């Protein structure tokens, strides 16, 4: 049978970076094909070439056996290729229907297209379990449904091949299961699915074949049945990795942080964190699990002094952080690794050494009085880079030029380096490659063992479970419950979806 997609000898350079090195890949029609690899391994570049965002320097693309040249996403769509991006390309105030026809209006008047689209949507919903209310406003839909709209958009344009880029990052376990059922349906109907992910368990669960990329090269393509998570991880990193950090039991000491009846509201006065109370003690990691957008970010930012709480107290050593600004919170001994590395954690247009003092730029050792001297700034960055194995260890390289994992290490080095009492970490390994994940996890455990208090917010349940000593699950701004790490994933998943299962 002719493969749905063939990429032959794809080569792409960005300046000195060889993003795709002679990549050849064949994807069978009616199959689910996974592509895994660390960040910067070239997965996204390869898919962007297939979808017409980039042009390969060399190589051929065949769709359904025919040579094609894909110069733009419109070309790709014309050849029956659809893409569901990691960050949805939807217009929030528009309805589902309007979003689906966007760019396919066919003429000046939108009426006929809309009514045609409505019929088509109903058919697709029936065929693929893709029910969404066509009249719902997209912005008001949960993320899982928004993703369905993205899939519908692609199918509406006649996609035979669907590329999904990290589709489960924003989903609850239940939503992810539903997504996999949809993908299964698509496959049964003869559609081809390309799944880019770094979650190896998903690969094992639903794909037929899996290709591994490393440093721009395609190092292996395997039948999923014939491989294991361990083998894939090793192929991705090029060496053996520990998927789960080893850690001893925690030795919690006195209470460091006491959050009491905390409520945080957003700009519109809607409560995002609702009457939350908990303690964090020395020498323990408290994990806060939950689907992204359920108040964890606001909780983190309130502790860090960025958001002013509407009510409640955040006591650290007798000081109320709720009444402090971020600079004061930092002086009181709270270090904060923000969830959004690119937009908060560092300044991408600064060089690494300048990003490495963000928030600590008033440290007296960095210059006398009002001065900020270059030498100590560089020296501090160099030291942090050595301690955290940042690559390349170049303090004057632009922050934006580091990979996600190395950016995160720069931030961790900065925050941990000041010897905090409490470390608040959001999504420490989001978009970080496996090798770096292992390193970051190990450092967090070490820090715990030195008696620091750590709050860990992550949407990765695996991460929460492997690092935390206690788990708090947040849903809709409230803490649904506290569980220990041995709690099974199903129960945590239910809590994350707001369902409290009675103890049987």
């Amino acid at each position, binding site marked *: 049978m002719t493969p749905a997609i063939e990429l032959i000898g794809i080569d792409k350079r*960005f*300046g000195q970076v060889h993003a795709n090195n002679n990549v050849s890949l064949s994807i069978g029609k009616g199959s689910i094909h996974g592509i895994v690899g660390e960040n910067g391994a070239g997965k996204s570049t390869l898919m962007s070439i297939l979808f017409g965002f980039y042009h390969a320097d060399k190589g051929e693309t065949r769709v359904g056996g025919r040579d094609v040249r894909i110069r733009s996403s419109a070309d790709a769509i014309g050849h029956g290729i659809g893409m569901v991006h990691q960050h949805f390309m939807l217009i929030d105030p528009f309805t589902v229907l309007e979003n689906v026809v966007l760019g396919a209006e066919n003429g000046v008047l939108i009426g006929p297209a809309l009514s045609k689209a409505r019929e088509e949507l109903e058919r697709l919903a029936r065929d693929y379990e893709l029910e969404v209310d066509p009249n719902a406003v997209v912005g008001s839909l949960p993320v899982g449904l928004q993703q369905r709209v993205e899939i519908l958009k692609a199918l509406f344009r006649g996609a035979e091949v669907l590329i999904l880029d990290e589709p489960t990052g924003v989903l609850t376990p239940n939503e992810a299961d539903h997504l996999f059922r949809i993908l299964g349906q698509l496959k049964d109907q003869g559609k081809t699915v390309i799944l880019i992910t770094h979650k190896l368990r998903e690969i094992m669960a639903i794909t037929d074949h899996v290709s591994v990329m490393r440093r721009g090269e395609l190092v292996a393509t395997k039948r999923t049945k014939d491989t294991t998570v361990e083998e894939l991880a090793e192929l991705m990193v090029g060496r053996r990795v520990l998927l789960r950090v080893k850690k001893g039991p925690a030795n919690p000491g006195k209470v460091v942080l006491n959050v009491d009846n905390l409520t945080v509201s957003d700009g519109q006065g809607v409560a995002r964190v609702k009457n939350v109370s908990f303690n964090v003690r020395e020498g323990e990691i408290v994990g806060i699990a939950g689907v992204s957008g359920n108040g964890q970010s606001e909780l983190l930012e309130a502790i860090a002094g960025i958001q002013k709480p509407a009510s409640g107290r955040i006591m650290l050593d007798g000081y109320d952080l709720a009444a402090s*600004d971020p600079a004061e919170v930092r002086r009181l001994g709270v270090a*904060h690794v923000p969830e959004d590395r690119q*937009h*908060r*954690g560092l300044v991408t247009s600064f060089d690494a050494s300048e990003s490495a003092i*963000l*928030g600590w730029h008033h440290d007296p050792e960095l210059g006398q009085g009002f001065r900020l*001297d270059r030498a100590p700034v560089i020296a501090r960055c160099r030291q942090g880079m050595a301690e955290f194995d940042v690559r390349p260890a170049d303090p004057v390289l632009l922050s934006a030029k580091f990979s996600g994992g190395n950016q995160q290490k720069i931030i961790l080095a900065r925050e941990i380096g000041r010897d905090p009492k409490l470390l608040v970490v959001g999504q420490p390994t989001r978009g970080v490659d496996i090798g770096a994940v292992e390193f970051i996890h190990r450092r967090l455990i070490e820090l715990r063992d030195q008696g620091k208090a750590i709050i860990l917010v992550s949407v990765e349940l695996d991460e929460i479970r492997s690092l935390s000593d206690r788990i708090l699950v947040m849903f809709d701004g409230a803490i649904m419950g506290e569980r220990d790490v041995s709690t099974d994933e199903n129960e945590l998943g239910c809590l994350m979806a707001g369902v409290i299962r009675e103890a049987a």
Partner: protein
Amino acid sequence: MANPRGELPAWVDIAAIPLLNLTLALLIAGLVVLVIGENPFEALAILLNGALGSLKGWGYLLYYATNFTFTGLAVAIAFHAGLFNIGGEGQVYIAGLGAGVVGLGFSFLPWPIVLPLAILACIAFGAGWAFIPAYLQAKRGSHIVITTIMFNYIAASLMVYVIINVFRPVGRMAVESREITAAVMPSFRAIGLWVGVKLPNTPLNVTVFLAILTAWGLWFLLWRTRLGYEIRTVGANVDAAVYAGIRPSRIIIIAMLISGGLAGLMAVNEILGVQHRLVLEFAGGAGFVGIAVALMGRSHPVGVVLAALLFGLLYQGGTELSFVKPAITREMIVVIQGLVILFMGALEQAFRPWLMPFFVRQGV
């Protein structure tokens, strides 16, 4: 992921692209000159000779460049804080008021005291005029582009009123103040006569050194102080600034005060250095040229000084050209300047995509 600014070698970014842009601007300007029936090469020769061919030309060039350096730096620091200060023109104008008030009001004090006071007054008045839009932006969210534009008009009207009703000596027709004799920036010609060298009569005065010092000072502030770090952080990423415990509203106000103060320094050159009296419209559009200068100089003090020199050349050479070739009017010169701004400011990045494959293929 590819950085949209790409991976061109540094020398291409710093030298080749600006040079290419400048050449293209001159090429198109040459076509315009051709269309009105003049020889573009001759015109270019006259322009260059007018600015660079004599000491007098150089004197004017540097005098213009001094003005543009101040207004360019003013726009540049605002850019670094993520602000677009279009109000340089008004800030310069109001700063003249500071020069006038101190220069005339404190004329009983000796020169070494009045002059620094007058300079400080220029800074303070310029900064003061920038403070109101800054405050409105920081605390009330009024867009600084709109408010600074408005404040240019207010400044213009206010100055007309003040010069006519307050500063104009009774019984005089000319709309200008008494002569400021107490606070004068020495001109090069005067210094030349003093040491016995005869220099041509140009507006060039020692403020040019103040401009260079100021450019260095701004570089130091931005890249070697904690405040500069905070300003650049706010400009680059407000979220990161808030995370770092920097209060953006505070930085917006500080950056605009510095910006207004820098613009105000142009009044030192113009009022204390050249006119020696408060006159109408003395800013003469230099506040707006500062925007182009800052854009072209990539908001870096060194770039600003270089761009100011280029604009000084165009101004002086252009004036000379319109003298020699009546067909090339003053307005034509503005067209040529406009083309330079268009190619070097607005279209600065336009030719990168064409250059990119060339360098990428070379495997650099």
